[in-house]
């Protein structure tokens, strides 16, 4: 690598690490951010896996690892997505209080700012996943998948986290106010719940089956559930979706960064 290229990479990395450090520090040191990020997924997991376990007795429901594992995958991907969205809130807040302007002035490589937020989103999600996984295992979740399959499951979650963060950051850098929160959150909520959340796709009927059949999140859920049960399905499709989404929303976030730069 040439010297200027090395300098560019170093600049990008130092910006990304600095932004990530500040964002992670804010997250960990403020209970108002940390507690909901951890509690909400646990709460959904409890409500779905505990309250709806009778759904595993519905005719045609045949998931080898049981209902707890079935719901764990949904809650894992949901926490991945919302970890990304909540980081978008942090982006918006930084613009609202003017801190992001200082980032824009100081950063040699401004793409590093977005990369830093993405890194922070991943750290947030990893903390949540550790706690969620521990609770699920204590609750007796059966895991049929082996090492590679579980790596696949968490790999999907990482890509979902990245995609959601880039989507939310794109909105945040356009709106540059926390008032854009519902715009970041609601579409993610919508697309997650229009997938087979409670029962497999084959047991859905009517309009929700039609919508879930074309919802890309369905492939992610089905692949994730296949991984955890040790019977992988639609893996190629799921990873194609999981890679395409960050690419698409990466362009969206880049456009947002350009808008923020133009706004000054």
């Amino acid at each position, binding site marked *: 690598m040439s010297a200027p290229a090395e300098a560019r990479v170093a600049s990008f990395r130092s910006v990304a690490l600095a932004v990530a450090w500040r964002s992670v520090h804010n997250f960990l040191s403020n209970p*108002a951010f940390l507690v*909901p990020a951890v*509690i*909400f997924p646990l*709460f*959904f997991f*409890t*409500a779905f*896996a*505990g*309250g*709806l*376990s*009778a*759904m595993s*007795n*519905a*005719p*045609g*429901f045949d998931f080898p690892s049981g209902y707890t594992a079935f719901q764990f995958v949904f809650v894992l991907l949901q926490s991945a997505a919302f970890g990304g969205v909540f980081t978008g809130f942090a982006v918006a807040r930084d613009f609202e209080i003017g801190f992001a302007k200082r980032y824009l002035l100081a950063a040699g490589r401004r793409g590093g700012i977005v990369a830093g937020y993405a890194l922070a989103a991943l750290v947030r999600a990893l903390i949540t996943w550790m706690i969620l996984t521990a609770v699920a295992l204590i609750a007796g979740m059966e895991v049929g998948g082996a090492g590679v399959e579980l790596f696949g499951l968490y790999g999907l979650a990482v890509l979902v986290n990245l995609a959601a963060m880039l989507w939310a950051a794109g909105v945040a850098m356009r709106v540059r106010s926390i008032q854009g929160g*519902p715009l970041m959150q609601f579409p993610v909520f*919508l697309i997650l*719940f*229009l997938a*087979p*959340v*409670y*029962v497999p796709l084959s*047991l*859905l*009927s*009517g*309009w*929700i*089956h039609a919508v879930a059949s074309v919802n890309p999140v369905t492939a992610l859920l089905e692949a994730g559930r296949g991984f955890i049960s040790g019977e992988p399905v639609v893996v190629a499709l799921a990873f194609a979706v999981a890679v395409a989404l960050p690419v698409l929303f990466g362009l969206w976030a880049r456009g947002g960064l350009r808008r923020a730069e133009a706004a000054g």
Partner: protein
Amino acid sequence: MSRDGLRTQVGQLARRSVLRTLRQPAQIVPALVFPLFLLAVNSGGLKQATNLPGFPTDSYLTFALAVPFMQGALFSVMNTGTDLARDIETGFLNRLALTPLRGAALLSGLLAGAVVLGLVQAATYLTVGLVAGAELVTGAPGALVIVVLSVSITVAFGTIGLFAALRTGSGEAVQSLFPVFFVFLFISAMALPLDLIQTDWFRKIASANPVTYLLEAFRSLLFEGWEPAKLALGFGIAAAVLTLGMLAASSALKTRLVRT
């Protein structure tokens, strides 16, 4: 102060509260859209639950229609609390404290917005549910009782918002209570009847959760018929929450006014 004076005070504050609610689509729209969206998703996604032995109706939509009324009440906590917190943050409450306004008038007046929101919510949820194909075995009288019960619960929960606002004085703090109240809704017989919840600890918590019995009161009117015991329990819980909420809010108001 004369009864007319008190009536005037309550009337003025109620008018302000109603107008403020109606002028804030950001309060009304999510309170209508979010519960209906979840109703649509859950009634589609959990339709298979009606095939479980012992499920009380063959329409999950009818079973799930009780839930939006409770979600609407949760929005009442947030909206009522946030409005009062804004009055505290902007100093409006301090100005009211300089007038001979009674605490009871202030609290009652502030709940008028919750009454209007409760009416709009109840009418919308019920209409949408029935248009979508939900049953209502108790007919028009049942619909009327559903609306009255819904408004009662919305107002009762609104007092919790008032208490939270008076205690904290911060809109952000009131908003942060939303997940806490959501827990009460989710850990109840929201998605399945009590006797079909398999997980022991979950069923025990749901059995002790008053929200379960509020849901059962709505459900009795929707698909069971007239069940006086369930209705009495539903209205009784609403009355208890209203009484406790008003007492707590009155006490917090005194402390708040002393502080100012």
